[in-house]
């Protein structure tokens, strides 16, 4: 009998070690999540081996989906358009938890301490806070009602002090939330703020305005000064073109002395001096910029464009502020994500069903990975960056 028990015991040990060997120990600091929005799936990719690890299905509506990561880089939080908030375990490649927290949503953020997930919602307009581990609701902040409907919330970012800052599209406000319940409201900031960003040090929150020229700036070191308009009239004499795709400010470019911002309704990137927030130069581009992303080296800025110009990428040289190269990237360039130290950039080519990996020395494609209508690409280094 004892012998039987010993044999069974050894069998169990052998089987469990097999399970361990099946999934070898690994880190998650070099992983990426790629959104495949049409079929509501994600790909988990290894950016060191430049390969796809696994596809996971079942995310509802992933149009305009975005991702933030837990500070241990093990979990990805995926924000879907349909109000879906999913927590994915990147190690086991499984959905750990998934909730539908609203009817219509537009992205989210994770708090400075990593304990709280915030989601910005269109319907019902507002922000909801969740415990990052269990996705249990902590707070529900309703946005200002306009004509019987809560204002849509955009441009939600995390801020120092375990805070969050976000903009209200319909009511033209910026709200700063600290500790789940201390809310500071800045009203009449401008017409239709469409997106927001926070500088990497967490000091300035900038919101782009759709309904008028320019941006709004909030200095979180001096909140008593309120919000101020920047670049209000840089293009007042130029006709504004139809905007076929809203630019994104998240993932925007900042170098030593300048911000690079998309000129909404214009074929240009704005070079803005960090000291005085004035436009230093208007860099003419191939189309209306959507993403303006600086390499981690700050040497180059990569720009993609709204339809019908979403087939090319332009590279701006940070030394000369000139376009140094135009790449025929393929149809439907949607997103670009640099690796943490910038040796490569991953580019989603939606209409050609692939993600191209560019070497940033030669600016040439070194590998293509098949993906179904890929859109956003999110690497786990974001876990340790304010505002991402």
């Amino acid at each position, binding site marked *: 009998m004892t012998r039987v028990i010993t044999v069974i015991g050894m069998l169990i040990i052998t089987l469990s070690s097999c399970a361990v060997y099946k999934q070898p120990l690994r880190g998650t600091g070099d992983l990426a999540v790629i959104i495949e929005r049409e079929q509501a799936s994600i790909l988990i990719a290894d950016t060191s081996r430049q390969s796809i690890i696994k596809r996971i299905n079942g995310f509802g509506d992933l149009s305009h989906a975005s991702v933030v990561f837990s500070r241990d880089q093990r979990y990805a939080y995926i924000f879907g358009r349909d109000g879906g908030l999913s927590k994915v375990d990147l190690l086991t490649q499984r959905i750990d938890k998934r909730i539908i927290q609203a009817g*219509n949503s537009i992205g989210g953020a994770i708090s400075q301490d990593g304990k709280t997930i915030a989601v910005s919602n269109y319907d019902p307009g507002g922000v909801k806070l969740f415990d990052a581990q269990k996705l249990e609701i902590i707070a529900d902040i309703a946005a200002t009602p306009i004509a019987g409907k809560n204002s849509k919330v955009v441009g939600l970012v995390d801020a120092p002090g375990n805070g969050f800052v976000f903009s209200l599209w319909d009511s033209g406000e910026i709200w700063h939330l600290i500790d789940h319940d201390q809310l500071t409201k800045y009203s009449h900031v401008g017409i239709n703020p469409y997106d927001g960003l926070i500088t990497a040090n967490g000091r300035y929150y900038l919101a782009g305005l759709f309904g008028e020229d320019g941006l709004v700036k909030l200095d979180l070191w001096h909140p008593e000064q309120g919000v101020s308009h920047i670049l209000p009239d840089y293009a007042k004499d130029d006709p504004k073109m139809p905007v076929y795709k809203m630019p994104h400010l998240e993932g925007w470019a900042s170098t030593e002395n300048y911000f690079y911002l998309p000129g909404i309704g214009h074929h240009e990137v704005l070079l803005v001096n960090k000291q005085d927030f004035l436009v230093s130069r208007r860099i003419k581009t191939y189309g209306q910029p959507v993403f303006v992303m600086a390499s981690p080296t700050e040497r180059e800025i990569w720009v993609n464009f709204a339809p019908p110009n979403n087939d090319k990428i332009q590279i701006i040289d940070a030394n000369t502020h000139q376009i140094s190269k135009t790449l025929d990237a393929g149809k439907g360039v949607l997103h670009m994500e640099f690796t943490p130290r910038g040796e490569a950039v991953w580019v989603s080519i939606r209409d050609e069903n692939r993600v191209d990996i560019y070497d940033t020395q030669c600016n040439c494609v070194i590998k293509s990975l098949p993906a179904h209508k890929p859109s956003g690409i999110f690497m786990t280094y974001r876990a340790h960056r304010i505002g991402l």
Partner: protein
Amino acid sequence: MAILFSISLQPQAQLTESKQQQLDNLLKHDCGSCHGINRNGGLGPSLLVSDMEKYSLESLAAVILNGLPGTAMPPWSDLISAEEARYLANRLKSTQD
């Protein structure tokens, strides 16, 4: 009745299959970036078939071509023809996928 039927199909009949696919892709992904890939809405309103009942095909096509001033809906007339706009309007009114 047969005549009416053929007239309503006419705008699509003149577009090649590959053009129709392009427009379907545009509807799903580019219109979808504001209205949702499943047309459930987003920054722009939802465009479900049930939402479209109250609009005529021609008025929908006109909104697509001319946009809605004062909102984020741009005029698409630089990129698509009147016939293509009618195709999209017809898709909005008739199909949900």
